[in-house]
């Protein structure tokens, strides 16, 4: 596990150098901890805004 100072230095380097690019890093790169949130198989959930449209099917 990285020290707190190392994590902060890494964090400062990351956003100080950013220009147009957006940094897309696993959160573990910032905290130095093993990311236990990673790689979940996506499930589905019903959308809020839609309607049946059988008559539009042609």
């Amino acid at each position, binding site marked *: 596990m990285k020290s707190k100072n190392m994590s902060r230095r890494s964090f400062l380097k990351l956003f100080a150098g950013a220009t147009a690019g957006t940094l897309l890093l696993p959160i573990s790169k910032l905290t130095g901890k093993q990311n236990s*949130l990673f*790689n979940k198989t996506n499930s*589905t959930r019903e*959308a809020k805004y839609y309607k049946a*449209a*059988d008559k539009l099917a042609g």
Partner: protein
Amino acid sequence: MKTSVVQCELCPRKCILKNGDRGNCGVRINLDGKLQTLVYGNPAAVHIDPIEKKPLYHFHPSTLAFSIATAGCNLHCKYCQNWQLSQRRPEETSNYDLPPNKLMDQALKAKCKSIAYTYSDPVVFYEYTYDSAKLAKENNILNVMVTAGYIQEKPLLDLCKYIDAANIDLKGITEEFYQKMSAATLAPVLNAIKIMIDQGVWVELTNLVVPTWNDKKSDFQKLCDWISENLGPDVPLHFSKFWPQHQLKNLPPTPVETLSIAWDIAKKTGLNHVYVGNVPNHPGNSTYCPNDSRLLIKRQGYTIIENNIIDGKCKFCKTKIAGRWT
């Protein structure tokens, strides 16, 4: 024979989907007559950013935003800097398990003032944004959207109840530009900007200046005229430097002179808070008093070096400065 066709009503595309079809955004699917989102609770990007990176310069400066995004987008901008996320389907990205309650835990643990729904577009992960924003409000965490604003009126009004601030891309000021650059239309975006402001959301606008596409003086003037006439002088406008990306790697970066011209035109049009983004050490990185032009906030990158706004007013002449400062 009964079909199971649905029509999505989230964005102006209003995709009509047969069973098994995906929406244009790539993250909604018709499963037996029910439209489902494939990205609820599963962001592909999780990061802690300074709020200035959104960019939001008049909203709780020097605070941190816990920033998330899923795969997918309902626009297809040729210059997208996040195309590896926005132009991908969720099965093509590595995704976190971060439902709203876990997202709150992480944001609180990281001492973030806000959660930002960003990078791709929160419109396409609407349900996740909505539920998370509602929970964030209960936990005194602010909610920020970074969006192209390509959304229907009803879902936007519903979401605005929980959104505190937004940076909205005003990519161009003609329908032709939106069609050619982003395969979208302009009118719904203009409507979304007005709605969010009317609903009390703090709004800042970003215009990415792309050489040969939207970099003429007339483009800047038309854009600024629309803002001035429809929104007033206090909505911050960020002109941002383009860097070659995605499908526009053949173009050069935006010259600094072009951005300076845009900055001047906007100020002469009467807009009070105009910025130049992605150009280090440009005077357009800083905030100035609209009354006496004194330097209010000096920025170096995303870091504030000097702040002369006290209780939301210019320290020198006491003019109220538009924004949400505390």
